[in-house]
């Protein structure tokens, strides 16, 4: 008779584990799968789920079975259970088995870690600069010049090495679709390796609390074909190479087009609207002042200064060093003109 309940429990436990594992694997856990690093990590997680669920089910089954079978019935108020003090074999068993299991999992995780952090020859180096509350991506070019962009552009299937630093506090560079992240630490350069494998646009997130604008410190990673990436890099280099001349080689825009470009920049990903409220643009950020209020009647020149040198004057009630002073470098001349034109129009 003593065997029966155990066999019953094993059967119930096995079925419940199977259902649990099926359910856990059915849940769509991860974001888009966009880098070579993703698959090993996702598989590791699946293995962890498959190992964990039977353990949880074991605990749950024993509790529920005990509650059902051994609960106090009327008339048992003064009864006690049998005085079982322990069982050495059982205790050795449940010390040794988990230990072996955990060490095996660690070995597997170590193998995965080596896999995802593998170095490659001919890596594309991208410098990532973090500042409260913006990302800047720098692509060093031959001849000591470099291309700078507020959004991340990467060629597909090319191993990339990010060299990450910070100008103020700790940030954390994370592209959920690539699965990997690392802190941007003031004073040291941290490294991260990724090989993008999927075309598309993926969010870049700051994962370490960095102050007021932490939630809006986002950007976008664009994974493009190597040819498109080459064109983008060449185009970014062109205006600098052109040397002088407002707008460089780009075509002249009408005032209307400028305003439209400015509005797009304002409301775009990682744009001004993330931190600033502006009724006309429909943005509701509260990190910085409401621009509909503070820009009223300002000249174009004053607005331009406010963008490129935000600490020059601070709205009462707000602190200096909150808005990144990098927009003069990360925005193109045209985008800056557009923003100024747009803001001057809406604040009249």
């Amino acid at each position, binding site marked *: 008779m003593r065997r029966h309940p155990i066999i019953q429990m094993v059967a119930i436990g096995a079925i419940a584990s199977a259902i649990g594992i099926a359910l856990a694997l059915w*849940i769509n*856990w*991860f*974001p888009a799968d966009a880098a070579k690093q993703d698959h090993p990590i996702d598989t590791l*997680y699946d293995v*962890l789920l498959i190992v*964990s669920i039977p*353990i*949880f089910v074991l*605990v*749950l089954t*024993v*509790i529920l079975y*005990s*509650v059902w079978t*051994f*609960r*106090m019935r009327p008339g048992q108020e*003064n009864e*006690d*259970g*049998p*005085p*079982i003090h*322990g*069982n050495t074999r059982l*205790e050795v068993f*449940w*010390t040794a088995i*988990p230990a072996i299991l*955990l*060490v095996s999992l*660690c070995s597997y*995780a*170590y193998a*995965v*870690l080596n896999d995802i*952090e593998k170095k490659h020859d001919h890596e594309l180096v991208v410098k990532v600069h973090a500042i409260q509350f913006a990302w800047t991506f720098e692509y060093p070019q031959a001849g000591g010049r470099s291309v700078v962009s507020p959004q991340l552009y990467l060629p597909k299937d090319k191993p990339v090495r990010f060299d990450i630093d910070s100008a*103020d*506090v*700790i940030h954390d560079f*994370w592209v*959920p*679709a690539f699965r990997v*992240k*690392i*802190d941007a*630490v*003031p*004073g*040291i350069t941290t490294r991260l390796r990724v090989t993008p494998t999927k075309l598309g646009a993926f*969010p870049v997130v700051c*994962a370490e*609390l*960095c102050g007021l604008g*932490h939630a*809006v410190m986002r950007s976008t990673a664009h994974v493009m074909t190597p040819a498109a990436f080459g064109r983008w890099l060449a185009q970014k280099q062109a205006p600098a190479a052109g040397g002088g001349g407002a707008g460089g080689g780009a075509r002249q825009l009408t005032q209307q087009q400028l305003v439209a470009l400015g509005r797009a920049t304002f409301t775009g990903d990682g744009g001004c609207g993330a931190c600033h409220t502006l009724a006309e643009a429909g943005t509701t950020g*509260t*990190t910085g002042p409401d621009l509909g209020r503070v820009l009223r009647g300002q000249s174009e020149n004053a607005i331009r200064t406010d963008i490129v040198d935000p600490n020059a004057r601070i709205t009462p009630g707000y*602190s200096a060093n909150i808005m990144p002073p990098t927009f003069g470098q990360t925005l193109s001349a045209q985008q800056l003109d557009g923003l100024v034109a747009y803001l001057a129009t809406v604040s009249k």
Partner: protein
Amino acid sequence: MLAKLRAPGWYRAGLFTLAAIAFAYVLVGIVRSAMHFPNAWDDGDAITIVSLIAVPLFVLVGIGCFDYWFYWVSGRPTRPEDHSAHGAQSWKDYFRVNTDHKVIGIQYVCTSFFFLFVGGLLAMLMRAELAQPGMQFVSSEQFNGLFSVHAALLIFLFVIPVFAGLANFVIPLMIGAPDMAFPRLNALSFWMLPLAGLLMVGSFLAPGGSFATGWTAYAPLSTTMPLGQLFFTIGVQFAGASSIATALNFLVTIITMRAPGMSFFRMPLLVWANFSTSLLVVIATPFIAASQFFVLLDRALGFQFFNAFVGAGKDGSVLMYQHVFWFYSHPAVYIMMLPGFGIISEIISVKSRKPIFGYRMMAFSLIAIVILGFTVWAHHMFVSGMQSWIRIPMMITTAIIAVPTGIKIFSWLATLWRGVLHLDTPMLFALGFLTTFTCGGISGVMLAMIPFDIHVSDTYFIVAHIHYVLFGGSLFTIFAGVYYWFPKMTGRMYDERLGKLHFWATFVFFNLTFAPMHVIGVQGMPRRVADYAQQFAGMNLAISIASFLLGLSMLVFLYNMVVSWRLGPRAAANPWRALTLEWQVSSPPPIFNFDAVPTVVGGPYEYGIPGAVHGIFQSPAEAKPMPAGSVATSPTTE
């Protein structure tokens, strides 16, 4: 009036508060004048910082925590046998400096539950903001303050001290001692606590808002924040000092004041658990004190410990803060869990009517956790940019620490097996704890695996994990313990129906609140953000609704406790038929606990053995066996 101002108490404390502010004003003025600083006499920041340190110290003197020692130091007559500050006759005695461990225990528990409700309300505000993407109710500055104060209060003013409070009440009774080893130190430890809590809550009034760098206060963000940050930095010092003093008190009490016959391996597991916890506190807590002193010196006096951009060699080390901080804050996780393990051992054994399974392994696994607990801290730093090899040993130790924890879980399960389970409120919380804590433990092992941790660190997966171990773990054991010892502490019975309602509501809404956070975390939602991507909107709304219902379930608990304390039926001395010593005296216990010193003659959990007892109230020579669970004779003063 003058007499009132001179006698220890709240009037004198008020006077001393003014004196402390005056002291801060004059000190800052003189030092700044001597240094030829501008605005020597009206630097509000500096005066506030010095006041933050001076006011709590002066208040402690004012209410009388130091009177006895000052008398002794100055050579004035002290009265060592004076028990006027011992025991409570009316509710007013709970608002005075009292040296009775039972009064202090209740003071601790009530104070920490007050901060639980404050911290919980802050969480509700956060969930209101997070119910929809975009910003609705609070600014990002206020939101950062909400989660920071929420975490700081619940860690430093709730979980850690409420365990100290329960242990304060129960441990001396359990080991057969008349009080703690150092009753006056005990009182001082308690009174530092509400002051620390007031500092943290008071930070909302500071210009620039409350501290907003999380409870982790990572430098250099914390060293560049407005004044509110220092309310945390200094508040933690008082909470930490309180913690250390109490832990020393427990260690000395447990080592030196056990009743005759109470060998280490006859101690109830709660005593073992608090012994282990106190070891952790004494060794680890000075590290968080250090980390916050570094921040204080950096922020207030420009020491540049953590500034990597200035100084002779630009040699400020940002990572150093995290190493020192986590060297405390990982063991702190066990400080917040081991006493709960002790509570669960007591309850599961008594309510299953069986001896605890594998008593010695249960005790040894606590010690194993204490030792291993000091070897895992850098698993909080897998993505911090530290030397990458450190991650590997930390992964292995982190996984291995699950082994002693597993031993405990399996031993509890084996204790249930073939018992006679009394499924009342404390037992329900104990069983609920076993399930939720197993979940938290499993996600903990997942987080030990570096590649997975790299993806989910700083996401809602972490938020889910810590709430499964601190809410589903610690808080469930706290509820179990409060219900279990409520009759002993108050002399009244709680309402069993409301207790069960509280358990089921808490259990269901807890899981509905925190389980979905695992999913949004892995999907890529970072933690500590007031605004999030549209894709997480549905889940967050569901979480917010569940969290409000979870909040409501706490009101059932509050109502039950308040009404039962005043109007509940009188409790018997030993309503649970338990063997441990605290149940062998009246409820509530007599003023010096035991009218006759008990003698311990057997193990604490000998259920099922006819006639077994743990302690008797005669000298060992005249000891007679008694039936299990019967109330030992203890003439009380009532």
